[in-house]
């Protein structure tokens, strides 16, 4: 006979652990979100000011300086024609994969833990893409001629060259940016409506426009759900295509170390690896700074931690496959690349990458305690992103220092301008996110609520078990 007390403890355990089994009134949740959104303290403004300063220095100051003086102010040189800018580009594209992966794939596979974290990650996608999209411009020798890449009937009577992977890249990024922005926006509509109904003044006016007159009728919900489902399915191939094409920027060339058929999936896995890690990082910070402990719980970090570990496995597999192929291929220049990584000037970076991307996740993330500790997870996921940045740096700037003509090998160190622009772009991302955190409901309340409705604790024999009912 199950005692009443045990039953209570059991269900308390469930509540504490699982958001879905710890329902609160919608009103209360709404209020929590609105409070988080509208609470602005001094620290917030300091952050915003500092970031704005960095953005100004990096994107207006340093980039402007580069445009007016020439690409030479960057550290790139023959034969390393691409450097930190392209590294940043690939990195931010990688980060942008977080949102879609966490949100769309988990949505498609109906992973319930996704519910409170979809918004935060989708937002990352959009902002990371925005920042990534800056880099092809920053990196152009003649930025003021960027529009020559856009296909439109023009007086030059010239179309862009669709043979060029850069053109595919541009198309893929635009598609992804539009798709992911819409995908971010659709589930936001009910939340905007919620905010509209509970705010006054300028917020009310903005949310009224953004809510598109949402009333919450049955047919509106029906259409929204359908649209979200369609987008969730449609955005996944776009996501794969984007990073595959970014990889093809490298893979389609005959540059030693780049020319590899594995690069497409390798880059996609790497992107998801870094993207999911970035989601964890951001969620930990959001929970801390916006008091979202109710919504973001151990179970979420646990799940994300597992994902990070799984993608660490996957990334390692690709890395190893690529490395081994190069090694056994035995081509002279290929071997030089391996020497460069193991003993050359970039060796320290390479070993850091191996530690942060393989050693640390493998040794720690199998442990549930570490997975659910926000501090530990923060360190690990930050490490993964540093490692993934290094991986791209080695591939872009490192491999270019070696080529088939040993006379023309080179060296590369980023210049102050490149570093400032990089900091500026990171600050842009953070600033956008920080500003958005006070304008956009960061937790999709309706999705959480929807999940909570469908979850109940049922008594089966002596045990209390959670059960989920399919709503659709």
């Amino acid at each position, binding site marked *: 006979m199950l005692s009443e007390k045990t039953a209570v403890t059991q269900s308390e355990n469930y509540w504490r652990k699982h958001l879905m089994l710890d329902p609160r009134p919608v009103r209360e949740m709404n209020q929590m979100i609105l409070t988080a959104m509208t609470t602005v303290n001094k620290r917030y403004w300091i952050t915003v000011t500092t970031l704005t300063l960095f953005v100004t220095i990096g994107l207006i100051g340093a980039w402007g300086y580069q445009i007016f003086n*020439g*690409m*030479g102010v960057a550290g790139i*040189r*023959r034969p390393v*024609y691409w450097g930190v800018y392209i590294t940043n580009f690939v990195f931010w594209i990688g980060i942008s994969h977080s949102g879609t992966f966490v949100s769309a794939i988990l949505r498609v596979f109906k992973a319930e833990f996704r519910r409170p974290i979809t918004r935060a990650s989708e937002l990352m996608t959009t902002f990371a893409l925005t920042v990534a999209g800056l880099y092809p411009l920053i990196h152009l020798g*003649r930025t003021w001629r*960027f529009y020559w*890449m856009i296909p439109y009937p023009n007086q030059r009577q010239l179309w862009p060259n669709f043979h060029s992977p850069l053109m595919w890249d541009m198309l893929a990024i635009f598609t992804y940016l539009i798709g992911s922005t819409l995908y971010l926006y659709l589930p936001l509509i009910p939340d905007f409506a919620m905010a509209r109904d509970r705010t006054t003044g300028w917020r009310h006016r903005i949310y009224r426009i953004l809510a598109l007159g949402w009333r919450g009728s049955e047919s509106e919900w029906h259409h929204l759900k359908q649209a979200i489902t369609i987008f969730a399915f449609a955005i996944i191939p776009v996501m794969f295509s984007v990073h595959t094409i970014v990889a093809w920027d490298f893979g389609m060339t005959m540059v030693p170390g780049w020319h590899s058929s594995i690069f497409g999936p390798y880059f996609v896995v790497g992107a998801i690896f870094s993207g999911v890690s970035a989601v964890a990082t951001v969620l930990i910070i959001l929970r801390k700074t916006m008091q979202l402990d109710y919504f973001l719980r151990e179970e979420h970090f646990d799940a994300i931690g597992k994902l990070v570990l799984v993608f660490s496995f996957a990334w390692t597999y690709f890395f190893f496959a690529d490395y081994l192929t190069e090694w056994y291929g035995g081509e002279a220049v290929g071997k030089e690349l391996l020497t460069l990584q193991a003993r050359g000037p970039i060796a320290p970076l390479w070993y850091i990458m191996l530690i942060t991307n393989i050693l640390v996740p493998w040794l720690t993330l199998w442990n549930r305690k570490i997975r659910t500790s926000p501090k530990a997870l923060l360190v690990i996921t930050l490490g993964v992103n540093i490692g993934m940045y290094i991986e791209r740096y080695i591939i872009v700037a490192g491999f270019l220092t070696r080529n088939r003509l040993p*006379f023309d090998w080179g060296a590369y160190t980023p210049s102050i301008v490149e570093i400032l622009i990089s900091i500026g772009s990171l600050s842009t991302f953070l600033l956008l996110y920080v500003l958005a955190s006070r304008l956009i409901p960061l937790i999709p309340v309706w999705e959480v609520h929807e999940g909570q409705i469908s979850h109940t604790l049922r008594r089966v024999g002596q045990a209390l078990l959670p059960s989920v009912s399919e709503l659709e």
Partner: protein
Amino acid sequence: MSKYEHHWTMIVDLDKCTGCQACVIACQAENNIPVVGEDEIRKGRGMQWLRIERYWEGEYPNIRARFIPLMCQQCENAPCEPVCPVFATYHSEVDGINVQVYNRCIGTRYCANNCPYIARMFNWFDPQFPEPLNEQLNPDVTVRQRGIMEKCTFCIQRIRRARETAEAEGRSIRDGEVQPACGQACPTNAIIFGDLNDPNSQVSRLAANRRGFRLLEELGTEPAVIYLKGGESNVI
């Protein structure tokens, strides 16, 4: 016979090349290539389209130096061409060489990465020709702005001029009529230029030489520059 009207080809006889740099300066003078200065050279940002690579063989005292002049190889299957998003580099249908349209270039530097010969030079800054040094600029060749990629053109301006002259005189271009600046200056006659479509041209004869090879031939880029291997005499 190739599919082009001309198949401009350069023969570089490595046995004759002494590494004296006359070609380098000739090229620089003919093509308005700017001087970039000490610091830029230290960074590896020299602009000379033609460079002479020097490799060492052996150890002291049995050491030899090898010189290889390297310029754009004008590949038939040029890796630089398909990657350019704006058609700034493409294959000339008349001359069969790889053409760079400066005005079209937006500076992605993709072509330069993809060139296995590292033959492409980038204008990291605006070129400087302090007055009156600008008086010397070749009026047939554009001065390139910052942010533009450039490379050896086989002195296309000279090819064009020869063709115009030949057309005006109602004949075809004679062998030896077109000489790029480098070949013209070369004191040892190590650089020979001509039309491979003309079976009687000097390059056609030299191309059949058994010392002939193309650089990084295994990549299948089919360069239009043919090197003649440096000779070996067995000396003590």
